[in-house]
């Protein structure tokens, strides 16, 4: 996955109306078909999942955004899951973005090339660990361990304004915050590698100019690197957000599976992908349709975020070239 696209070189373009051998034109049609498959699949995803979700949309109407989820009583309001998705994704980004940008700057501005490669390998290793392994580790090792930390923080801030409602008890190992931390581990490699790509495009001459004026490395980064790569880093963060919202299995194991809206970050919660993963097997009728509907909402949210991210990146890349 790359977000920095160099301009395509002009190639002799094939026109289908030109007089060319049949096999040659056939091959072009074949490749076009394979390319169009991407658009076909995206359209099919939208159509088929909304079709399955239609009975949820029609029976619940605007109540799909209510905070009332009770499958036994045929109540399917999805607000708690949307809330959980937003909260866990925000926690993940708050934790992951400073670290990722820090590592990206470390790789490109500080360490020499021969040290950068092993660091990149380590980041790649992080990306290779499957999400279900993060989930397994999260629920069996990490959650029981961090529960003690949650409890001590909770008893410390209990009753304090702002902090109390956020970090006060109840403290559960499987919670919004644990899910956010695990998602942060999974988002870090993506945000790191994308922002590294962007930061690496800063022209060396600009950086040397800043050094020649007597800037320290920090001043050079603030004056040259960050303004130049702002848009790209924002794009990378948005792509990380899309990933954090859609990541399913790790969150499903560590989030605690409780459809509640609460400001308490250490309390068990639920988010959209994990409720689909956990409940789909037993669901029938409107229940199943509601889970499909959550999938549609998730699809729409992630598509919007991805489109914005790509647009931001492309605009900043154009501006970067123009300047």
């Amino acid at each position: 996955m790359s977000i920095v696209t160099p301009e395509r070189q002009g190639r002799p373009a094939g026109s289908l109306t030109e007089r060319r051998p049949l096999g040659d034109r056939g091959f072009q049609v074949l490749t076009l078909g394979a390319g169009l498959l991407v658009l076909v699949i995206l359209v099919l995803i939208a159509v088929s999942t909304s079709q399955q979700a239609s009975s949820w949309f029609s029976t619940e109407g605007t109540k799909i955004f209510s905070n009332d989820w009770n499958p036994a009583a045929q109540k399917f309001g999805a607000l708690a899951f949307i809330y959980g998705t937003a909260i866990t994704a925000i926690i993940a980004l708050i934790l992951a973005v400073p670290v990722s940008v820090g590592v990206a700057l470390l790789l490109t501005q500080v360490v020499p090339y021969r040290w950068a490669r092993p660091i990149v390998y380590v980041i790649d290793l992080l990306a290779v660990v499957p999400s279900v392994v993060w989930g397994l580790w999260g629920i069996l090792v990490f959650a029981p361990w961090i529960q003690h930390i949650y409890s001590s923080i909770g008893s410390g801030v209990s009753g304090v304004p702002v902090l109390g409602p956020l970090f006060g008890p109840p403290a559960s190992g499987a919670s919004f915050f644990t899910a956010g931390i695990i998602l942060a581990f999974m988002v870090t490699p993506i945000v790191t590698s994308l922002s590294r790509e962007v930061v690496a495009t800063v022209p060396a001459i600009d950086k040397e100019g800043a050094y020649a004026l007597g800037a320290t490395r920090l001043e050079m980064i603030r004056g040259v690197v960050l303004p130049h790569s702002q848009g790209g880093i924002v794009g990378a963060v948005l792509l990380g957000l899309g990933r954090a919202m859609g990541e399913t299995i790790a969150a499903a194991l560590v989030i605690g599976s409780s459809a509640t809206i609460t400001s308490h970050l250490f309390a068990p919660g639920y988010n959209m992908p994990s409720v689909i993963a956990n409940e789909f097997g037993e669901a029938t009728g409107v229940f199943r349709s509601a889970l499909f509907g959550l999938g549609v909402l998730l699809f729409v949210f992630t598509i919007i975020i991805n489109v914005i991210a790509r647009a931001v990146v492309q605009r900043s890349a154009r501006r970067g070239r123009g300047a």
Partner: protein
Amino acid sequence: MAPAPAPQQKVDLREPRSWRRSKNRIVTTLMVLSFVLVIIPLGFVLFTVIVKGAPVISASFLTSSIPPNVLPANIGGIGPAILGTIEITALATVLAVPLGILGAIYLNEYGGNRPVARLIGFFADVMTGVPSIVMGLFIFSIWVLHFGFSGLAGAFALGCLMLPIVIRSTDEMLKLVPNSLREGSYALGATKARVTVTVVLPAALGGIVSGALLAVARAAGETAPLLFTILTVTTANPNVFSGANTSLPSQIFVNASSPYVGAQGRGWGAALTLIVIAFILMIAARLVTARFARFAR
């Protein structure tokens, strides 16, 4: 990129111990610290998986059938899950890699700057961001509802995930093939299809293969698209085209939610197996890249 020292006597012209230099040092330390923060969880996970998984793994663990969850970890194994993962991932690769390469050929060789090519490129990027669980729901609604659970359905879902990744990585590699190679072959009178297949593709083969291997590594570890497409049974199913199947990631998911220590133990063993498979694919991708880089010189 520290300021170069003067060649003979070291004359430091920088301000001594200014706040500017301390700030610089603090921020550099923070950057190193952020890398340490990345290593700690990674080290922890790998350490735990190896310590808890290695004692479970043996030849019989890798081949014998999946026992009921209540039994201790030294009984039974994960044979059917390994078989399922190999079947389903291989089928997904066969479906997605050729289509992805063809799509990338269109983007790079035929499409140029045409609107349709730009649209496909843009949406291939967007498709990499579609959550894997949505792919599972998608295949469930168009395939499983009509034809039932099967390894094939799982392969479709994994293939949908791999397709945009393969398109993007292949596209990057095709961009690197020098135009002079293409022009040389056109000058010899070759058609565009022939140039693409016999000159451009071989020149980019190393990068294409390593990109495909990374896509396979990613797909082999995916659970969410398989949950609603293969059903995750405990019996081995050598027929990938029909009947419910199982896979390593979905088996780990089931075992992770189990309260039994034995099932959790087998989960750790399966996790170690899965990570080893992913690492082997990643290392293979690096070796292919290195091999072809040498070949190209």
